[in-house]
């Protein structure tokens, strides 16, 4: 073996460090042989093309190992549970609003007709969306989401002031996007056993109810943080709780992000808006590590 070949081999061995260790142990020597065979004579360093090819393949190998070989299913599963969770929460929230409107009417306060109609129909639309997602009716879920956007627009028209459509963008769309995303992705996920679905859903909705009851409208409240921490802890065991956490926070974080943009000197809004994505990244990493361990054990 010439010194050029040795130098090239060292280069390839360094590049192979991009692959997961387990992959290197299984394929490393064979890959180096093939790479050396395919290199032009007297080459002392790898071509840009082979570096890019190895980088791409190594990234895919790591992703495959981290997600147990099915990235799409993991994402689709999370989105569907997030959508279900969001619908359940939205039903409760809207029922509360209906009750509040009923109290206004009973007390003789003038309540806008459009607002009453929209608020009254929204729980039913969310129920439809929930059933559609549960039964994996993608078209039904999308239709429900569209209906909800229309109801959001109706509600915006009933609010006083010039910024009605800004209200739709801030409130109705962020709240409906998780449902759209879940509806689009859910059909890709594999079916699960019904008792497992019910157990998770009850746990998630229960936690949500507790958090919302105690947190009220104080987005910086201790209860909200405590609830988030509880979901994070559960997220260590099941990634769907992470999705639940994101949806829980999505109701307030859109507004907080806008607040952070309007008042950049107030760091609290920005921090509050950044917490869910940071949690998501950190906990997804932990989930990936666990999936990798499971895969290696099998």
């Amino acid at each position, binding site marked *: *073996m010439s010194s050029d070949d040795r130098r090239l081999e060292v280069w390839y061995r360094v590049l192979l460090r991009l692959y997961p260790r387990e992959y290197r142990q299984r*394929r490393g*020597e*064979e*890959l*180096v*042989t*093939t*790479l*050396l*065979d*395919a290199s032009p004579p007297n080459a002392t360093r790898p071509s840009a*093309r*082979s570096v*890019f*090819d*190895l*980088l*791409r*393949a*190594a990234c*895919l*190998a790591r992703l495959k190992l981290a997600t147990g070989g099915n990235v799409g299913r993991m994402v689709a599963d999370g989105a569907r549970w997030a959508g279900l969770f969001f619908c359940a929460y939205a039903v409760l929230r809207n029922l509360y609003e209906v009750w509040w409107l009923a109290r206004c009417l009973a007390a003789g306060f003038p309540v806008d007709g459009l607002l009453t109609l929209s608020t009254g129909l929204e729980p039913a639309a969310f129920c439809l969306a929930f059933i559609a997602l549960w039964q994996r009716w993608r078209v039904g879920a999308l239709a429900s989401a569209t209906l909800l956007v229309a109801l959001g627009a109706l509600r915006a028209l009933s609010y006083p002031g010039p910024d009605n459509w800004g209200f739709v963008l801030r409130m109705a769309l962020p709240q409906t996007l998780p449902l759209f995303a879940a509806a689009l992705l859910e059909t890709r996920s594999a079916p699960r056993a019904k008792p497992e679905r019910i157990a998770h859903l009850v746990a998630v909705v229960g936690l949500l109810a507790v958090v919302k009851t105690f947190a009220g409208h104080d987005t910086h409240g201790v209860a909200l943080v405590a609830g988030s921490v509880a979901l994070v802890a559960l997220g260590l065991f099941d990634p769907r709780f992470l999705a639940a956490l994101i949806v829980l926070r999505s109701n307030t974080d859109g507004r907080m992000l806008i607040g952070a943009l309007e008042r950049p000197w107030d760091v609290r809004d920005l921090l509050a808006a950044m917490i869910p994505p940071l949690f998501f990244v950190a906990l997804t990493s932990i989930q990936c590590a666990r999936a990798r361990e499971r895969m290696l054990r099998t």
Partner: protein
Amino acid sequence: MQEPTYLVLVALGEKPLHGYGIMKAVETLSDGRVKIGAGTLYAALDRLAELDQVELDREETEGGRVRRYYRLTRTGRQVLAEETAVRSRYVARALAILEGKG
């Protein structure tokens, strides 16, 4: 099925080949149009092995270098035949259109 994967199956359809042998065969089969890198090749081989379309034929060590030869399984040969039939139909239709018969 993507073109490189199809060409890998075609290359292995003739005889068992090692990694570099497959890369050369793919290049020859495609008249130099498709060149697959080693990283892409082994990712494709892993995927095909998971699908039970390709399996290890033998392993040779020469001058301290490991060379593994791969071959098509029965399933792999069947998939290759089906994919080739589909592609042949497309080609026949395209030719008919180009010749003004479509």
